[in-house]
């Protein structure tokens, strides 16, 4: 295949618009015995046409990624295998093809982009070579032509200095840049089908917008058939032509995007859409009463990175001139992209990090001026809920002990603390027997409830929640947010809610502080910030929210806040 042949738009696909590019018929994928269900994918049937974006939507464990992996021959053999059905690519069953033929499809005709750009590239190989490998495998191009094509591809995905970048190692690139490299790699051989498995989930919202724009324009330009796997209905609204909704391995709803988004039929789809946070739904203004509970005043923190015998260390300003107040009963949202310093401020308030300068006043006492012993009483008053419910609970301790540990450390009677732990677990919606079990027996959402119970056991006045729902599925996310809101109301708790997701912030926060590069660029009530943003960066953040032109169907908007029974 010559270079000119490679760069022209394939005309054969245009001629074949009537027959589907990909025809999945009755696909079943079996899980190893002892898994929570026998089939990861159960009798799945759908088609993908040329020049179309099919969004496959579902929560974790719905089997959406398994389907894509089966197509690419990436199922973890021998434990997980295709149990039945067929996967027809242009009329030919991929599953019964000899391995060599399958390999020529993989990366050649069907290409894939993965979720995690940080780990999807070989850390020890130059970016250009990794892209070149695809060309080497699937084309007869000589080495110089391959190099030229790699540079061309990197330019096409909008990377600056493509020639220089081809020689870089992945660790030099940001997450967004790496995802662009992955896309360039997938496009290298002009595939007919591009499978994108949550390609923007790990990215910041503004980067997500750029990547979505890129994917959409490339798809339209090359008339590719695209299978886009996501859990985010905002993203679906942004790019989908057709939508397939999956649950527990089964296809529950399938149709044109406008139908599924605006007139969802299946109860599960309706529930998913109802739990999508929507930024129009900002809260009424919070009436600040009395003296502030917490005042952060010109907090500054600089991290020193690297450095050695012959090299000075690099200074990274994680927070500068950070000032905000939190009143009793108020929820303050700290919003920003990764590296903006929002967690640094949160951790400084809890006392996990010591800022270089500034004051953090809790009910008038400067926490930073206290020594270890003096700070101890305040540890009770300020509690934290962590991001990763899988990593933040000690796997060797019973849940009851985890919750009771804090009060016991502060001298509470063990029996009393355990009894209180049971009450709290019931309060966060967990079963009475939960106290005697271990964390691994719970799902992510349930673990986050345990994390909340643990924080509440200390009877705090201020809760610092650092991305408490970002590791959770949308429907579970909605439930945990509701729980936090319910507790806040009942106990009149003040909360500092750290999140990268503006839609979530809109749902739970009274006051919003937008952070960028270690500074608070905008601070105001949720209503002000969302309806009338003053800072250009806030506007670009709001603008980047996927699916903002889509309005959740009215009959589902009412469902929000009413909640879904039962804890997941």
């Amino acid at each position: 295949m010559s270079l000119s042949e490679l760069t022209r738009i394939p005309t054969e696909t245009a001629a074949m618009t009537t027959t589907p590019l990909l025809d999945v018929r009755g696909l079943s994928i079996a899980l190893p015995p002892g898994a929570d269900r026998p089939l990861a994918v159960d009798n799945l049937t759908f088609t993908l046409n040329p020049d179309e974006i099919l969004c496959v939507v579902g929560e974790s464990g719905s089997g959406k990624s398994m389907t894509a992996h089966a197509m690419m021959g990436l199922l973890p053999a021998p434990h997980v295998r295709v149990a039945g059905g067929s996967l027809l690519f242009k009329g030919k069953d991929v599953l019964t093809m000899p391995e060599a033929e399958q390999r020529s499809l993989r990366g050649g005709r069907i290409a894939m982009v993965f979720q995690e750009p940080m780990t999807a590239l070989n850390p020890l190989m130059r970016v250009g070579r990794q892209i070149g490998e695809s060309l080497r495998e699937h084309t007869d191009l000589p080495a110089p032509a391959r190099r030229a094509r790699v540079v061309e591809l990197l330019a096409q995905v909008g990377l600056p200095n493509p020639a220089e970048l081809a020689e870089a190692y992945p660790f030099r690139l940001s997450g967004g840049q790496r995802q662009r490299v992955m896309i360039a790699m997938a496009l290298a051989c002009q595939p007919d089908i591009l499978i994108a498995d949550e390609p923007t989930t790990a990215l910041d919202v503004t980067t997500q917008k750029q990547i979505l724009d890129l994917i959409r324009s490339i798809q339209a330009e090359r008339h590719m058939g695209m299978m886009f796997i996501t859990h985010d209905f905002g993203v679906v609204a942004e790019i989908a032509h057709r939508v397939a909704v999956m649950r527990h391995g089964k296809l529950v709803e399938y149709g044109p995007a406008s139908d599924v988004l605006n007139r969802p039929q299946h109860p599960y789809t309706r529930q998913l859409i109802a739990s999508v946070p929507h930024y129009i739904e900002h809260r009424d203004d919070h009436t600040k009463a009395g003296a502030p509970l917490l005042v952060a005043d010109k907090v500054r923190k600089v991290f020193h990175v690297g450095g050695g015998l012959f090299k000075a260390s690099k200074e990274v300003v994680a927070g500068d001139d950070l000032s905000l107040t939190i009143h009793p009963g108020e929820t303050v949202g700290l919003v920003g992209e990764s590296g903006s310093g929002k967690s640094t401020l949160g951790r400084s308030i809890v006392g996990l990090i010591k800022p270089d300068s500034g004051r953090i006043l809790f009910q008038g006492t400067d926490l930073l001026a206290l020594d270890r012993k003096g700070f101890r009483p305040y540890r009770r008053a300020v509690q934290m809920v962590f991001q990763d419910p899988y990593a933040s609970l000690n796997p060797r301790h019973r849940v009851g002990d985890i919750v009771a540990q804090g009060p016991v450390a502060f001298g509470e009677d063990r029996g009393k603390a355990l009894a209180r732990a049971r009450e709290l677990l019931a309060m966060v919606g967990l079963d009475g027997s939960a106290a005697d079990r271990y964390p691994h027996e719970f799902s992510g959402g349930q673990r986050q409830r345990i994390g909340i119970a643990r924080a509440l056991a200390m009877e705090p006045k201020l809760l610092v929640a650092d991305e408490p729902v970002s590791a959770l599925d949308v429907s579970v996310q909605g439930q945990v947010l509701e729980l936090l809101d319910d507790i806040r109301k009942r106990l009149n708790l003040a909360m500092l809610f750290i999140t990268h997701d503006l839609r979530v912030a809109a749902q739970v926060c009274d006051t919003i502080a937008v952070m960028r590069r270690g500074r608070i660029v905008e601070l105001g009530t949720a209503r002000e910030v969302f309806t009338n943003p003053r800072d250009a960066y806030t506007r670009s953040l709001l603008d980047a929210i996927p699916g903002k032109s889509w309005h959740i169907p009215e009959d589902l908007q009412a469902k929000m806040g009413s909640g879904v029974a039962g804890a997941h």
Partner: protein
Amino acid sequence: MLGFAQIFASRLVKAAVILIAIVVMNFFLVHAAPGDPAMVMAGEAGAADEKFVAQLREQFGLDRPILEQLGTYVGKVVQGDLGFSYRQQRPVWDILAERLPATLVLTLTAFLLALALGVALGTLAAVTVGTWADSAITVVALLAYATPIYWIGLMLSLLFSIQLGWLPAFGYETVGAGYTGLAHVADVGKHLILPVITLALFYMASYARLTRASMLEVRGLDFIKTAKAKGLSQGRIVTRHVLRNAILPVITVAGIQAGQLVGGSILIETVFAWPGIGRLAFEAVLQRDYQVLLGIFLVTSIMVILFNILTDILYGLVDPRIQVSQ
């Protein structure tokens, strides 16, 4: 590459500081042992009267304050003078220079063999994981790892030299044969085979196990999925993507072990009567030949430091991320 030169320079400066610290510590360690060479010599001479001992002490400078002795010793070492062995009546440096090549030939051959075989076997085991080939390699590696090294040496020499008579059982060369040129090399090579295999087996086993485990870990990483999704062949995925990443921990361990090889061959040198540093150290301890002992300490320390620097350089070449973080 400025970064590279900087790392190298900083490593050399650190190495020099560490080396001087080692020399000083060795000196005090040896002097902490009860008795001094003068006492031993006087004891062996059979005439242990005070005056004779004092005279010996004066002759060797042992009556000077300890710090002055230290100063003299360090000063000499810095100039490359390792002292004089009164036992053997020869400069220490000459004795070491005579013994060092034998040890280096033995240990480096064994090390390279172990590394090549170990990585190859580990890779094979990882690629065929769960099959009989993997099980066989794992069992062999476990046996080689667990069996005492001298016992393997004895058994090998029992089989191949005493029963079969194929190979010489001990020594560095055929005594009195007077071979020269290629014939000499062949003769030494023949003597090398058994000790090298004995020494290499143990290290090979640990590299094979490490390579296997590391490859299995890397095989599950995301970028291997990317490589498969590109449609690459199994062979290319294993060599270009899995092995290169999996080799990093092997380099770390091999680097540490390479430094210890010189000191770690004492058993082998004893079993096979190999005239190397290891046996010299053993003899020097028995004879309280402190000057020789200090010399051996110094040489082995230099080896450890040298191999550590080499490992770091190699690591920097294999893993581009290292230079930045340093």
